[in-house]
């Protein structure tokens, strides 16, 4: 079990405060730390009041899209005609992202408490926590926490099920996740209908990310105004966020900072900077699906929803992948494309065929057999793969390709012109 680093003074530890404290995993230990007080507080309120508080806090979804959480909850039917469901997206399959894993490993009750509060707010009687299949340890910890909290009677009539995924990336997409819970192939569904109208089992459903829900108890106990105050730049991005930093930094790991924190400081200070003798070359700021930032963009980027968009990428899930000057960007982009080609659910034509074709072209360029026309072809295929499919897996494959060619074109051209030694990819 990896042990987390000591909090850096520039971190704002809210969700990660008890990371590393084994006692916080236990029900008693959690209650001792003030756990489940927020749930009691929420239960004493009308559901609509809880929704309003979360709306006021400015909390936005931490899974990738950044949709305002309170607003999402308010889409659920006010007048209850059918059973309501809450799905917790703990699939965390986005390469470069490992924050939800740590939340579940160290503070399983924070997630359970947030889940129960959300279920109260949307009047759901059943909640599914969909845990990534590879997360065996978090699953065991969650399972124990759920059993303990359940026997302590904290959930009342709410039924919480842990549903283990079977290893498909796409099951982290909210509608695919619902299909998977239903026992079907994990295929994304066309919207509308949106989950709030017809979600899992055709019933009104809300889907929230683990980190989003883990933040909810804090909002209730400390108040929306306090949470809203946690913001370093854009008032539209509030609260703290865990950033999973991996790649060529001295100290990879999860870092919790207030939104609006400079990416430069995250990399150079919190993570201890680049490996000795190396310089920053590029960074993927929000999980593998978002456009790549070059050095200048990285060093001037503020980590909030608006700031990253200003630099041409997205905050996404907060999976920060850092590349130093030793990195072969063509190879890295090929690996990403290959991942998407492997994980495409095969429904939409552009994605099924486009991700695989993109991979083949990139592999051939790496093998030293690329053609000059390949780069324009890649860009054109990416254009055809963007904004035209049911979900954004196809777009996610295109994003690093387009930004990679735009920002690191010479590396591609070196392979094509034979200036660089071919790489045989298995």
């Amino acid at each position, binding site marked *: 079990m990896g042990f987390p680093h000591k909090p850096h003074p520039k971190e704002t530890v809210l969700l990660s405060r008890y990371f590393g404290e084994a006692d916080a995993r236990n029900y008693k230990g959690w209650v001792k730390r003030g756990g489940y007080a927020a749930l009691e507080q929420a239960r004493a309120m009308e559901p609509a009041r809880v929704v309003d508080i979360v709306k006021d806090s400015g909390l936005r979804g931490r899974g990738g899209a950044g949709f305002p959480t309170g607003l999402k909850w308010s889409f659920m039917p006010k007048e209850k005609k059918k059973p309501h469901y809450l799905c917790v997206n703990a699939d965390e399959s986005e390469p470069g992202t490992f924050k939800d894993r740590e939340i579940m490993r160290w503070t399983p009750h924070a997630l359970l408490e947030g889940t129960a509060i959300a279920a109260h707010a949307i009047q759901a009687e059943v909640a599914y926590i969909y845990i990534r299949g590879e997360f065996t340890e978090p699953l065991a910890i969650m399972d124990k926490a759920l059993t303990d909290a359940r026997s302590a009677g904290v959930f009342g009539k709410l039924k919480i099920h842990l549903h283990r995924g079977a290893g498909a990336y796409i099951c982290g997409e909210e509608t695919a996740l619902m299909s998977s819970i239903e026992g079907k192939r994990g295929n994304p569904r*066309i919207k509308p209908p949106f989950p709030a109208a017809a979600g899992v089992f055709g019933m009104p459903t809300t889907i929230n990310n683990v980190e989003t829900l883990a933040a909810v108890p804090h909002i209730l106990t400390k108040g929306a105004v306090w949470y809203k105050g946690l913001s370093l730049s854009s008032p539209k991005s509030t609260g703290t966020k865990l950033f999973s930093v991996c790649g060529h930094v001295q100290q990879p790991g999860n870092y919790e900072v207030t939104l609006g924190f400079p990416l430069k400081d995250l990399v150079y200070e919190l993570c201890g900077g680049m490996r000795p003798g190396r310089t920053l070359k590029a960074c993927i700021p929000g999980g593998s699906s978002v456009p790549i930032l070059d050095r200048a963009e990285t060093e001037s980027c503020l980590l909030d929803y608006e700031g990253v968009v200003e630099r041409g990428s997205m905050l996404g899930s907060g999976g920060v992948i850092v590349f130093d000057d030793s990195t072969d960007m063509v190879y890295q982009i090929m690996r990403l494309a290959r991942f998407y080609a*492997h994980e*495409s659910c095969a429904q939409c*034509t*552009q994605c099924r*065929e486009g991700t695989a*074709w993109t991979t083949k072209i990139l592999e051939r360029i790496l093998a030293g057999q690329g053609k000059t026309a390949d780069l324009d072809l890649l860009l054109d295929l990416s254009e055809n793969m963007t904004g035209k499919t049911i979900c954004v897996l196809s777009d996610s494959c295109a994003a690093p390709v387009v930004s990679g060619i735009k920002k690191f074109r010479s590396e591609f051209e070196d392979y094509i012109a034979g200036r660089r030694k071919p790489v045989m990819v298995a």
Partner: protein
Amino acid sequence: MPEELVNLTIDGVPVSVSKGMLVIEAAKQAGVLVPHYCYHPGLPVAGVCRMCLVEIEKQPKLAISCATQVAEGMVVKTQSAAAKSARTGVLEFLLINHPLDCPICDQAGECELQDFTFQEGRAGTRYSPDYPKRFNPVEDFGPDVLYVPNRCILCTRCVRFMEDVAREPVLNVSERGDRAYIGVHPETRLDHPWAGNVVDLCPVGSLLSKDFLHKARAWELDKTASLCTGCSQGCNVTLDTRENVVVRVRPRPNLEVNRYFICDHGRMNYRWMNRGDRIEAPLVKRGGELHATDWQDALERVTTTLRGAGPRVVSLVSPRASTEALFFARELFRGLDWTGAFQVVMGEEAPLAGVPDLALRAERAPNGRGAELLGYGREYAAALAAAQSAAVVLVLDEPDIPVRAGTLIYVGTVLPERARDAEVVLPIANVAEEDGSFVNRDGRVQRYAQAKPAPGMARPAWWVFSELGAALGHGEPVGSAAEAFERVAQAIDALRGLSYEQLGFVGKPAAVPVAV
């Protein structure tokens, strides 16, 4: 309640369509066929092929017209540069793993991948020949279905048909990404009684009918609107003929009867239409033997026989005979002591679970209801007994020929052994060789058209009986099936007011109580 209408513009053409209609259907009303693969009006919407992308004003992204409902004031542009380029992109993607083996593919000529590529695809591929194409071997899915995965575009129409319409989900999409293919449950076969529809639904040459395999190229086929004779459901079909041989039966859409489907029993029920052992000339008994003759001689022989015979007449008719033929056959014996009966072969009922009121019916004949309307009864055994003492027994294409004392007049397509002692044998056309109509179990009157010529001197049965009736003084003979139907409609209350023109090729309900 009046239907709520929505006004929108599609490619500059204003249309008013019912609320809730999909853009792809509304476009048809504007005369625009939006290219598509996964969409089929008889299946739930999947929205996966992404081929029907169109531009809709004020929407940030292109929309798939198969999953977008019409809205008031909507402006749809199917031919905008963005929409066309997106569809061209989809076609290119669909073709990179496609073997392009059109010259040996059964679907060529009626392939939607060919058609839309021709319409708006790229002239050449940018997929390097260095890259391998996906390969999977041909799979034997079931009694009549082969799966050629290399041609598959994964539209999932077959999967959705089996899951949502047949409600026997034995097909799925197996694997992911570009390795995906249609899988069949390892412990079952695609042998549902309606499974053959997946072949029609497949927009490319991936699901093939073994029965039709390599029989013809699509462009060699003539297509004729017809009706299935397999049971009393009355499914609308198209007979595909090549050089006057029926080689395939496919469903013809009729939302009131069979939607877009036919069962495998009906699909395979056509070989008899091509039988070679047909009666090709009228035959008359001379010196104890049947001899070929001309129509005039044969018809005179029948009228002479009927004029000289006693009043007891029995008609045993086939429930596959047209309403027109049954009517004129009945008219011959107006005023006589007449008994008419038919028998129906029974089989097992096989419903199509996802479509109400659609089944392969136990009653395996297309026109039992029509025969009843015209006064023929189902008491076949009683009729056989009556035939023993009748002066004349008329048999219309019914192989079960009774023992009798009187004269036998046999009117049929083929000559059963026991019909050889008939006084006269008159050759008639079968269902593929004439125009006519049937009344299905629900009392729906439907037309079928002639798909190929009758052999030799065989004529439609309505013509034969109308000529005989005229010779016996029952009015003028009729010159066409339409005219024959007019006479029926004048005489039979349930059909009053109907005409061939009115029936069209989807039919109309007769004024009869619905069969139980």
